[in-house]
């Protein structure tokens, strides 16, 4: 079979709206409108990446201010009410505006279609809509927190949250709108993965990043509606006096916690599974090996997605649930350790007899294994009922979930940034500075949160504005750690932005990776591939990849000179990434450029 073009609903409209399909997507069309109204999944990914980076910066600034306040006992820089608002803002921004949309919105959008050999996601317009819904929801949520002076923590527990009930309803409404963005993105990914895989891209050959995003999308679509139910109940209570959560009206505050965590616990897996998905890519490219037990790694993502729905009660072991429910949730919680363990063991085993890279992104993958192991193992303490009684609501919990969320997801996100930056921008970053920034982030992170483990198990409760003298050294260490961490993150931002401005030009496959996104130009052309690739091997089968596929340099320098992406000055250029199928002869790009768009869609379909 020759290269075929997959018919995409609205695909032609998409081309029309976005200009020349043979130019890099960054140059296919210009002007601000080409970004603001874009239907191209790669540009939407950039919009998301920009938005979540701003959210990360904002949430991070609040974190730094909180840490400075805790540097000394008593008042350091802000008063208690401001402190309470800041930790609410830190939590809400990081969870709802940063981590949940971060990886699916940016890398998911950019790489799912490319990794399965498609031109775009299934519903490009829906994709753009979900970004704008995110912007509306984010704005709404932030304004209601700031104007309503919400100081409830990101969990909005009743009845405390009822004293700012209108602001909480507005805030939950904002989160609900954000949820729609999540649902639409998730739905889009599910349909894309089901219907738009290139010929030969069987489910078994699906890259692990796509598997992880698929699992995430399932959770997004299934869990987010519960948030809507919670909101409706809050509104009933507020405006019609139905006693649901408010004990003054005969309601049950613990019920709110059930509803909240029924969404927010699956949301934890919306946060971590994408991080794991990226790490699976980094590990395979960093070792140049097929992942050990690929089926188990893919299945464990789905396993986590399902288990994520069954363990919300472990946030409430001290909240006054019955002993029976407590027992059940503890037992189910332990099951989470199995798929998590399988992933960590398989990643580590993949390194055995590999060819291991020490490039920044590969270091991030190792940092992920290191930090996530700590995050996962400390989860055991929290799952054990009697031990959790002591640890619940202390800094031990704070450290635990930061090790998972930040040590896991954010390390995956940063690793993904370094790994895919040359692909997304066509520019190489400074590797030496990259490694230095990694070192700062890794050391800073551990100093910040390791001290929180110790003060937590020694009895320091969370969300405290001030503390007893015995906790001072731990708080001091933690604050100093936060400065190291922040300097690493600012350096990261500098490295990536300066690469974008004046970095060296990147070859198509600077890391010698074997997945599909590296078999097209950097940055990819508007339609991702010049012709639809045909998949003949697993994405991580390095030993089956042709020398051209894993060639790290520029195509023009490829020995023998027959690299499929090479573009000799005279013309027969513009070949695509279907190198798995031994590169068909491609029409020159100039000819494609002038060809009628509709016939382009059919011309290879013979």
């Amino acid at each position, binding site marked *: 079979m020759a290269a075929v073009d997959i018919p995409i609903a609205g695909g032609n409209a998409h081309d029309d709206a976005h200009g020349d399909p043979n130019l890099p997507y960054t140059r296919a069309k210009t002007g601000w409108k080409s970004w603001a109204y874009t239907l191209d999944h790669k540009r939407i990914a950039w919009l998301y990446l920009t938005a979540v980076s701003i959210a990360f910066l904002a949430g991070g600034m609040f974190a730094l201010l909180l840490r400075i306040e805790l540097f000394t006992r008593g008042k350091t820089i802000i008063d208690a009410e401001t402190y309470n608002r800041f930790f609410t803002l830190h939590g809400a921004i990081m969870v709802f505006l940063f981590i949940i949309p971060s990886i699916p919105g940016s890398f998911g959008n950019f790489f799912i279609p490319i990794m399965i050999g498609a031109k775009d996601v299934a519903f490009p317009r829906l994709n753009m809509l979900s970004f704008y819904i995110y912007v509306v929801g984010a704005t709404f949520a932030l304004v209601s927190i700031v104007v309503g002076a919400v100081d409830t923590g990101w969990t909005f527990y009743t*009845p*405390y949250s009822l004293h700012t009930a209108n602001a909480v309803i507005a805030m939950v409404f904002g989160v609900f709108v954000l949820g729609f963005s999540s649902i639409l993105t998730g739905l889009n990914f599910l349909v894309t993965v089901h219907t738009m895989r290139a010929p030969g891209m069987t489910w078994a050959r699906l890259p692990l990043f796509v598997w992880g995003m698929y699992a995430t999308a399932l959770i997004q679509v299934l869990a987010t509606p519960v948030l809507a139910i919670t909101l409706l109940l809050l509104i009933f209570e507020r405006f019609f006096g139905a006693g649901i959560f408010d004990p003054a009206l005969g309601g049950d505050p*613990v019920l709110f916690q059930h509803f909240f965590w029924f969404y927010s616990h699956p949301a934890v897996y919306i946060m971590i599974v994408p991080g794991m998905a990226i790490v699976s890519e980094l590990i395979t490219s960093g070792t140049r090996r*097929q992942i050990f037990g690929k089926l188990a790694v893919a299945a464990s993502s789905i396993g986590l997605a399902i288990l994520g729905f069954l363990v919300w009660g472990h946030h409430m072991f001290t909240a006054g649930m019955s002993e029976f429910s407590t027992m059940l949730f503890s037992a189910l919680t332990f099951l989470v350790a199995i798929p998590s363990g*399988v992933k960590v063991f398989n990643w580590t085993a993949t390194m055995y007899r590999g060819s291991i890279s020490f490039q920044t992104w590969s270091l991030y993958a190792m940092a992920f294994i290191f930090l996530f192991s700590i995050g996962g193992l400390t989860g055991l303490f929290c799952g054990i009922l009697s031990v959790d009684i002591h640890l619940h609501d202390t800094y031990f919990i704070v450290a635990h979930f930061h090790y998972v969320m930040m040590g896991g997801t954010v390390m995956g996100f940063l690793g993904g940034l370094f790994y895919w930056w040359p692909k997304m921008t066509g520019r190489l970053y400074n590797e030496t500075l990259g490694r230095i920034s990694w070192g700062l982030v890794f050391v800073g992170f551990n100093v910040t949160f390791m001290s929180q483990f110790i003060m937590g198990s020694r009895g320091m409760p969370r969300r405290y504005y001030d503390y007893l003298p015995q906790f001072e050294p731990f708080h001091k260490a933690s604050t100093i750690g936060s400065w190291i961490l922040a300097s690493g993150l600012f350096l990261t931002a500098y490295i990536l932005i300066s690469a974008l401005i004046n970095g060296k030009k990147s070859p198509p496959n600077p890391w010698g990776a074997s997945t599909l996104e590296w078999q097209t130009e950097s940055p990819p052309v508007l339609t991702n591939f010049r012709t639809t690739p045909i998949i003949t091997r697993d994405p991580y089968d*390095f030993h089956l990849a042709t020398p051209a596929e894993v060639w790290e340099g520029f195509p023009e320098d490829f020995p023998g000179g027959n690299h499929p992406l090479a573009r000799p000055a005279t013309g027969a250029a513009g070949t695509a990434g279907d190198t798995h199928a031994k590169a068909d002869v491609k029409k020159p790009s100039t000819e494609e450029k002038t060809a009628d768009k509709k016939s382009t869609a059919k011309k290879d379909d013979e």
Partner: protein
Amino acid sequence: MNLFDPTFQLPEPMSTSAGHIDELFYFTYWLSVVFFVGIVGAMVYFAWTYRRRPGVKPEPTGHNLPLELTWTVAPIFVLVLLFHWGFKGYMDLSIAPVNAEEVRVRAFQWGWDFEYKSGESDSVLHIPVGRPIKFVMSSNDVLHAFYIPEFRTKRDLVPGMYTSVWVQATEPGEVVLTCAEYCGGKSKDQNGAELPFEQFKGHWAMQAKVVVESEEAYQKYQDGLGGNKPPEVRGRSLYEKKQCITCHTTDGSKGIAPTWKGLYGKTETLSDGKQIKVDENYIRESIYEPSAKIVQGYASPSVMPTFKGTVKDTDIDAIIAYMKTLKAQ
């Protein structure tokens, strides 16, 4: 000193439940250390041994089903052990011995009130060594949590329901009971101006002193609590214990709330312009429903929590008796 605790991760154990929890904590800790060192050790070893070298190709990944099954199934046994061990301990923590003495705990923003079986109450918690004490707890306003790190005990206090927890202290000493469920804070006055740090109140400051003492000392404390003291003396101590002292001065200086000096019998102007004579009924109402009648110039609704349920009629009598001693001149 615990031999298994070279890292000082847990505070001094002072209750019977601490033994179980500490053992399980350190068991899990050392188990985690083994797993962590295994995983990270292997990772670092592989990373260095198989570091990328020019011309050296990686070996294609093989299959090893027994290995994969082992690390999928083996952890299950460990997990079942941990679950069972923890659940057993949790049940022991949940079910109080029948002979436990009950102490009624009431939490409010931001303080604790402990009522002993004699009916007397205090803001300091006294516990005898070597005897089970059961705390029957409720909250007047929002969620709080009863947490004494040295006892390894914690339980949420939920408005609208009773929760309970029990402890048996093993050695005398003084520790701190602290709130572990976020319950807000206050650092500004009614005009939005920032108060001095000493007047900040909130979740972090919702602490109570816990005195763990011998049986004799405990009995002596119980005898001295309330008892036969004259009402104005009891009123004076309630003034401190119930935190009235935080906002109401007794020397005539202006605080967050009206001073008590010369308050009884005085005619005050309320926020709606009406005049009212401060008498027994007004004081009683103001303690139970602080926002019902607010004196002109003070925050409305009142920042004062209601003391309904934590201050009894006899306590109010005592407070009024104390107020009567604070004459204007």
